[in-house]
């Protein structure tokens, strides 16, 4: 070691103990290159360290690997000096030192040069961009492409930098777009974005990060394959038919890995990709994922058993109380992916065999779909072939001896796990990288441990109920800002509940309303406003009515939004036209005459003959021998009662739309349809806060016209407070009894269970009261029918309204068109 070398080392040590130690540790790898090289190396290291401590540390740590891969110091030592040219380059430098060796190995001398030059170029321009570039994992950065294509990918970014768009924003979107539509797509996408960026920086950034609707719309436009969006209902129906499951759908990732899109689940929702290669693969994906859910891959007990198997008492939970899988695979270290795939193949096989029992022909169908695809190249192909081979053997009933037990109906995920451990021990399947993994799955299959899981109760046919009323908002997933519930009037406060009453962990009422965990008495001490109508309420625990317990007040809705009403009318113009056309086509039926009337425009021949005959037979029949045609002659009167509780402000999981948006549209269409039909109708909304303050909001009474006033009120509809349904039904019944019409229908529109602040957290209490209110209504000749958006409505609606007296619309998009249609069917067309 020369004196000059020693001098540098001492200098480093003097400045920092760490620097000296790291430099000495790195030195052996360099010394064999000769004295001059060692000196050159140390000088660069020293300069970097003095320039930026982190950059220097990265330099020394990576040395051994870099020297090995580059067989010396060139050109990386010179390349490293670029980080000395600007302030604050340490993040870029760290990324460079971490990845340079890997790039050299995978993409050769030329590839590494391009990778470096592209990044170095950004150091002068925008240091943060360079950092984002060098830190992006090279597997993602390069994708399935080479270095030349990397240049093409980055070319548009220079132009965009003039519009002050950093590489960080651009790269994230660009690699995704490249995965989805290839390099040409990137150019097109970047070009279009330039104008958007010029129009506004924030809008432009959202475009490049693929966060805005216009960016999503662009991708949907160019994406090849089968779009799932318009067919969500079909898949929901199929899933329900085969497995009895009805889970909410949420938007999945654009492309998970390597451009392949997967259907995933967290045990509570399905994450649906925008597109899949074709319809068949989409169907298989829904069946396969349904099979995982139905046959216990995500069952609470089974998952506990898995963790016990590796010696952990309780699976680790994340902040959302979901189970995280990682520890299960930790023992495999860097070979984790290989084991996961072996495990996935066996667990997939288990549920596929179970599915075959339910759905004969499922395995052959899977095989057909797999055979139509080319075996993926590279290591992924080995896994693909293994999965196909096993599926084929399962199909012909010739599974290898060690796997026969997977085919039994009793087999569970634990058996698959144990068998995977055994097979992994002597598997010849090659190691695989994350980038390669995506291609390894058969059509419709996907990584089973892709997401943390909300464990399911065994045999559960529906998603776990975390908070009633909140399920439309799908708590636990990314929360979007919500519109704050508006207050109906100054004196029916939402947020003005005394603070001591809102402490607690309830939260069953609506969304975002803190609910008392304990209620003192039954809302004792709360003084509601005077006046109104009082009604009895059923207490199932005492098995008797509480007289004059609930007090109903009629209030006017103050918020009006005429513009929104017009907007909605325009949006649903097509639907409205179709509906009106259908109604007009029915008009002859609708105008079916009232027979046997005392007066009317034409004689009723049957009645007249009977009259004559009976007269001649010596009787004195009534002269009801006319027929009448009047538009209002239909004998059905309907009152639509809409649940306006806070939960309607929640966003539905799969669309980001709120219930209230659909509710406004639905009620508007309903009103328009009813005007066309001519049936007497009324529109009411309701909400509640404690038993003494049940609020009914008349939007259109029976004797009022459905005019601009009512439409504006619908346009301004918003959610507030809770859902004391029983009292609302009793009051509506009273209104209906005063209406014209012999048949009286009370149509209730809701999105969750009845609940109120003072129900003591007992969901059964108000549910039982509602049941009684429905019964009382029926005794008085008012028929109640509930349309619910609650996907779990099937659990309690039959109890409350009775079989056949309710309907669950799991997709709220169906509501606007569905509501008038449902009414017309209830009422009977002809």
């Amino acid at each position, binding site marked *: 070691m020369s004196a000059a070398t020693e001098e540098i080392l001492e200098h480093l040590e003097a400045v920092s103990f760490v620097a000296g130690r790291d430099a000495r540790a790195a030195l052996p790898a360099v010394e064999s290159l000769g004295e001059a090289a060692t000196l050159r190396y140390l000088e660069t290291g020293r300069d970097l360290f003095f320039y930026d401590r982190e950059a220097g540390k990265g330099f020394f740590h990576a040395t051994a690997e870099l020297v090995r891969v580059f067989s010396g110091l060139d050109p990386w030592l010179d390349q490293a000096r670029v980080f000395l040219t600007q302030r604050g380059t340490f993040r870029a430098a760290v990324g460079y030192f971490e990845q340079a060796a890997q790039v050299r190995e995978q993409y050769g001398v030329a590839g590494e040069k391009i990778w470096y030059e592209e990044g170095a170029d950004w150091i002068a321009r925008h240091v943060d961009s360079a950092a984002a570039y060098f830190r992006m994992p090279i597997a993602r950065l390069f994708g399935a492409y080479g270095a030349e294509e990397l240049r093409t990918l980055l070319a548009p970014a220079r132009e965009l930098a003039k519009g002050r768009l950093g590489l960080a924003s651009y790269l994230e979107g660009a690699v995704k777009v490249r995965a989805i539509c290839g390099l040409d797509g990137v150019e097109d996408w970047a070009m279009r974005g330039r104008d958007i960026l010029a129009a506004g920086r924030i809008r432009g950034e959202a475009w490049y990060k693929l966060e805005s609707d216009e960016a999503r719309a662009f991708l949907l436009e160019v994406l090849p394959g089968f779009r799932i969006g318009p067919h969500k209902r079909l898949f929901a129906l199929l899933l329900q038919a085969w497995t009895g499951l009805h889970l909410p759908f949420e938007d999945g990732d654009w492309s998970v890995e390597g451009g392949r899109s997967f259907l995933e689940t967290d045990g509570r929702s399905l994450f649906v990709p925008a597109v899949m290669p074709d319809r068949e693969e989409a169907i298989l994906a829904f069946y396969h994922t349904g099979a995982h859910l139905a046959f216990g891959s995500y069952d609470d007990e089974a998952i506990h058993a898995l963790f016990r198997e590796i010696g952990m008492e309780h699976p680790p939970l994340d902040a959302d109380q979901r189970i995280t899988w990682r520890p299960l695979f930790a023992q495999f270290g860097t070979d984790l992916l290989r084991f996961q795939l072996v495990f996935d193949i066996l667990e997939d096989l288990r549920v596929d065999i179970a599915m075959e029992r339910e759905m004969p022909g499922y395995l052959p169908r899977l095989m057909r779909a797999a055979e139509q695809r080319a075996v993926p190249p590279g290591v992924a192909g080995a896994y693909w072939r293994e999965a196909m081979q096993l599926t084929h053997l399962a199909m012909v009933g010739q599974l290898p001896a060690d796997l026969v037990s997977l085919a039994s109906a009793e087999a569970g995920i634990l058996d698959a796990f144990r068998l995977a451990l055994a097979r992994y021990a002597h598997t010849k399947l090659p190691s695989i990288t994350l980038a390669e993994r995506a291609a390894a799955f058969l059509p419709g299959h996907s990584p089973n441990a892709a997401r943390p899981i909300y464990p399911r109760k065994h045999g559960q046919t529906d998603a776990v109920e975390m908070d009633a009323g909140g399920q439309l908002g799908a708590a636990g997933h990314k929360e979007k800002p919500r519109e704050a519930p508006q207050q109906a009037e100054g004196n029916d406060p939402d947020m003005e509940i005394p603070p001591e009453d809102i402490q607690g962990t309830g939260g069953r009422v609506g969304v975002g309303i803190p609910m008392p965990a304990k209620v003192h008495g039954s809302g004792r001490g709360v003084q509601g406003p005077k006046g109104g109508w009082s009604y009895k309420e059923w207490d199932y625990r005492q098995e008797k009515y509480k007289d004059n317990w609930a007090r109903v007040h009629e209030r006017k809705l103050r918020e009006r939004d005429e513009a929104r009403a017009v907007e909605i009318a325009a949006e649903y113009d097509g639907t409205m036209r179709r509906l009106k056309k259908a109604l007009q086509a029915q008009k002859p039926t609708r105008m079916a005459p009232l027979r046997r009337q005392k007066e009317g425009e034409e004689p009723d021949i049957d009645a007249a003959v009977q009259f004559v005959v009976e007269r001649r037979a010596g009787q004195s029949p009534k002269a009801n021998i006319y027929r009448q045609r009047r538009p209002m002659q239909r004998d059905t009167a309907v009152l639509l009662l809409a649940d306006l509780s806070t939960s309607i402000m929640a966003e539905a999981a799969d669309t980001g739309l709120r219930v209230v948006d659909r509710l406004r549209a639905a009620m508007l269409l309903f009103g328009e349809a009813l005007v066309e039909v001519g049936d007497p109708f009324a529109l009411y909304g309701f909400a509640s806060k404690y038993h003494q303050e049940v609020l009914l909001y008349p939007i259109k009474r029976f004797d009022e016209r459905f005019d601009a006033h009512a439409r504006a009120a619908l346009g301004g509809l918003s959610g507030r407070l809770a859902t004391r349904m029983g009292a609302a039904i009793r009051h509506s019944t009273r209104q209906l009894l005063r209406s014209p019409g012999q048949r009286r229908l009370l149509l209730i529109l809701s999105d969750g269970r009845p609940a109120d602040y003072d129900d003591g957290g007992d969901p059964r209490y108000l549910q039982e009261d509602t049941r009684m209110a429905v019964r009382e209504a029926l005794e008085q000749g008012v*028929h109640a029918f509930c349309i619910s958006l609650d996907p779990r409505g099937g659990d309690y609606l039959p109890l409350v309204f009775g079989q056949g007296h309710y309907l669950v619309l799991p997709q709220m998009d169906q509501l606007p068109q569905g509501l008038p249609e449902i009414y017309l069917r209830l009422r009977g067309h002809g």
Partner: protein
Amino acid sequence: MSQSSHGDKALRYISEEPFYQPVGNELGIFMAAWGRRLPVMLKGPTGCGKTRFLEHMAWRLKRPLITVACHEDLTSSDLVGRFLIEGDETVWQDGPLTRAVREGAICYLDEVVEARTDTTVVIHPLTDHRRHLPIDKLGTEITAHPDFLLVISYNPGYQTVLKDLKPSTKQRFVGMNFTYPPAELEAQIVMRESGLDADRSGKLVQASAKARNLKDQGLQEVTSTRALVYAGTLMAAGLAPLEAIEAAIISPQTDDPELAAALMEIFTTFFGA
């Protein structure tokens, strides 16, 4: 004025045994009700065998069966009877209910909720210990024949939400619930009724079990045993399975394209593309 009974046509006796496959103890319950002449109410979805069951019982009891399919415009005089003019005189004609009451037939009011509400008024006195039928227009009241039995049926589906029978009416009847039979029996029924082979009958039934999971998804009725029999019949007559299913099951059941696609997908799984 003459009061001759106008119904000259002979009452309908069922001479050949209608095929009925019991699912539970419905024969026993019906026989017990018959023994005490208690009125019976058959509840159940479309096409699950209510009417067939009653035909079978009428055959078994060797009683004539008078069936009235109720509809919106059916009034009590349609049931009880009316005066007609014949030549120069007016003639009283018994309605189907009156005939059954007089002659001791089983009177079957199918889908009774469809009828106008005034019909229940004439039913009431027939359903309790009085067993009387008041005929206002004749100013008389007739006592039912000892073998008279009243049977009504209705389908507690959504169509009846507005027309549901009053609880007080329902309580006058012995209620019998009908549902679609268990898979094995249903397959036998399809086989027997349609002449289809066991394999395809079994598949039809298996597929419909899945299709019936979609019950709450639309207002539609679920796939009925009758629809399966129709599909089986068409298949036995040589129609391609999926064509038969489309024609006999899916098309009559729904106009909703997504639902139809879902149903088709389910049946295709069993009957191949």
